[in-house]
């Protein structure tokens, strides 16, 4: 009964979200971009999301010439589907509005390929894979233990060892995935700011950053965040000039 109620309310909320989405699309098409922004943000405030909501929000902010918000929502959409063709086109338009130009630093080959491989598979898949492989190991090992035929015993033993190794490595990859995710803290600059060498006002000014630039948060101390740019430069800035993409 309760679950039925829950299901009902959930589907109701979903329907509301869909209504907002349609209304926002309509407002966007009529050129009322701030209204569209409101409607899209209603969906997010109601606790729902989708690639399209973020993408359309990015579009609306682009039309409003709001560089930082536009890039922020495009990047959020990119967290869901990085390779969406329309997203790539519009994101490059939005990036054109930014002041800063930062060159991508090429990472060393093997670790990059390895990390990309890990991140390309979702965490839940690694998780369930480790469980399934563990079950397989136990099954094969039981066969090995309890079966009489030597032939089958030998085969089961080999298979069980292989499954155990794979299960352990799946676990390792899952935890690596998790730590990579935890380390990946992208954020967008929301107000023009200076980057300092130390997390205090006396620190020497290293460089300036402007609206819409994407940075990685490396560390944090009080009100200050240590950030890294795509080209590897690091420095400290006030944390309220940033908005984290993963909140």
């Amino acid at each position, binding site marked *: 009964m309760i679950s039925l109620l829950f299901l009902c309310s959930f589907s109701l909320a979903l329907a509301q979200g*869909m209504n907002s989405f349609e209304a926002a699309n309509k407002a966007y098409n009529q050129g009322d971009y701030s209204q569209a922004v409101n409607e899209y943000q209603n969906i*997010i405030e109601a606790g*729902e999301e*989708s690639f399209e909501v973020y993408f359309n929000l990015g579009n609306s902010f682009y039309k409003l*010439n709001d560089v930082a918000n536009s890039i922020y929502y495009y990047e959020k959409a990119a967290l869901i589907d990085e390779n969406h063709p329309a997203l790539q086109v*519009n994101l*490059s338009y939005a990036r054109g509005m*930014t002041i800063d130009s930062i060159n991508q630093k090429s990472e060393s080959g093997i670790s990059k390929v390895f990390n990309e491989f890990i991140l390309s598979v979702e965490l839940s898949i690694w998780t369930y894979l480790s469980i399934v492989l563990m*079950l397989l190991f136990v099954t094969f090992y039981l066969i090995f233990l309890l079966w009489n035929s030597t032939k089958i015993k030998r085969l089961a033993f080999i298979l069980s060892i292989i499954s155990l190794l794979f299960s352990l490595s799946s676990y390792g990859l899952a935890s690596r995935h998790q730590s990579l995710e935890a380390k990946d803290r992208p954020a967008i600059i929301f107000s023009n700011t200076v980057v300092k060498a130390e997390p205090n006002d006396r620190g020497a000014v290293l460089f300036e950053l402007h609206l819409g630039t994407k940075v990685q948060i490396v560390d944090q101390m009080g009100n200050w965040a240590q950030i890294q740019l795509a080209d590897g430069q690091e420095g400290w800035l006030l944390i309220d000039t940033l908005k984290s993409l993963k909140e």
Partner: protein
Amino acid sequence: MKTMKFYHFLVLFGLLISLQGFAQETVEFAVNLSKSKLGINERIRVDFSMNQDGDQFTPPDFKGFRVVMGPSQSTSSSWINGVRSFKRTFSYTIAPIQKGTFTISQASVVIDGKTYKTQSKEVIVTDAVKKPSDQLTAYDIAEEKLHLVAEVSKNSPYLNEPITVVYKLYVGGNINVSNFRPLENPTYENFWSSEIPINKYSFSSGTYKGEPYNVVDLKRVVLYPQMTGELVLEPLSLEITADVPTNRRDFFGGVIYSSTNKVVTAGKRTIDVKSLPEEGKPANFSGAVGDYNFFVEASKNILNAGESLQLKVRVKGTGNLKLFQIPEVKVPASIERYDPEFSEDIKTTFGGMQGEVSNSYTLVPGYKGKYPIPSISFSYFNPKTKRYHSIDSEEVLLQILEGPELGQEDQPNQVQKLEVVADDQFKFIELQTKLSPIEKKNFFGTLNYYLSWLLPLLLIPLAIIYGKNRQKRRGDVEGNRSRRANQLAKKYLSAAKKAIADKEEFYVALERALHHFLKAKLKIETSELNKDKIAEILLERGIEKDDIKELIQLLEHCDMARYSPISAGEIQTDYQQSIATITKLDKKI
């Protein structure tokens, strides 16, 4: 005829009235000293002058002085443009008797029935001077009557607040200045300076230390202090050629002038420059002090990629226009920006610099799209309001209609760039979606995960225990067998005891009992039962040789006894013997 007379009378009457009015308005009676401070060996001249004729002139008593000459009276009267001017002067030349401060008291005169009095004047008599004034040379007079003064508009300005310095030459005593030449021009160190040229030198009247002088502005400079603290204005020195009147007269009675050169110096001045207040100082303050307007303008807003436009950053107003930096424009990285061209249109006036300075940037957008050029802010300090002001420029939006799309420059095949342009327009929003709750919980790392990952492993020890149990049960079959053999051994042994009377039966039972005992103890089959084998196994089990021998003898005896006559006593002994052996072996195995 009669009327003519009447008109004449009217005109005369009018004239009279006007004269009367003129006479009544401006009665002046004044005293004038040639100097107010003199040495005891000098003389001064005292003039009492009136502009209306008067009677009963009473001079003061000149206490402390001796009248050397006078009174001498001079009267002048003239008509100029119908205005009559009249002047009568009584002059005395007096010499002091002693040092000190003396007062020349009031003189009085009666004009039109009213008594007018002069003011009393103080005269200071000092020690004897080297050159009494009547022996003064032209140079001495020039020295006394020429003064150069630097007038500074403000003694404690803010940093970069303009101040003006005016060098004024005070000329007294009928000296004519014919030329001047600067000897030493101040460099105005730590100031930005601009001299305001003076086209025409014109005299005006002024006073210097209470005495009337003619004044001329010789030099005007606008200064912007560039350092805080006490700054020293260097003195200005001028060499002045002056014509000084002498006491001699020429044939026509004109005064003969003698020419002399005199160096005058305006004294050092110290300016205390205040630093700008720290309170409320904007972060982007670049030193502008004054009153300004600020603009950012683009020559065009809609254009194609590859075309150029001018972006002009202008600062307009009054203040230290040449002395600050115009804020820099930040443009999106995809727009090419060239170094700005600086231009200025500044007039320096007495109040400071006025006009505008501007930086003109040439921008060339490379890609199509929309590029907002963010507003920049310009801050200045206004010394009048003593506060900082900030002006934000308006945002300029550039729209680039045609051109390649950003992000394509990385692609290797640039030739195809133009062909795909149509596909790279800004994409419309997506219309279909599938919403999902934002909160995502990670299963990985939770307790449930570890339980479901590792719990299956418990099946392995369970299976091992199961296997062990099964083996045990299998092992119990042997145990049962030996237990049964043991029971059989006991059974046959008791059977043998019953059949102790029957030799044959006794020995068969005894043998069987022994066999079953060995089967139970040594877990061997009936087929394996022969004496050598038994001996071998027993030896392996660590049984002593004597015991083994005893057992073997017993078995042999059983074999033998079946076919040979044996006494009842022997049977009894064998029975006892076998029980003892079994007990012994039972203990040892």
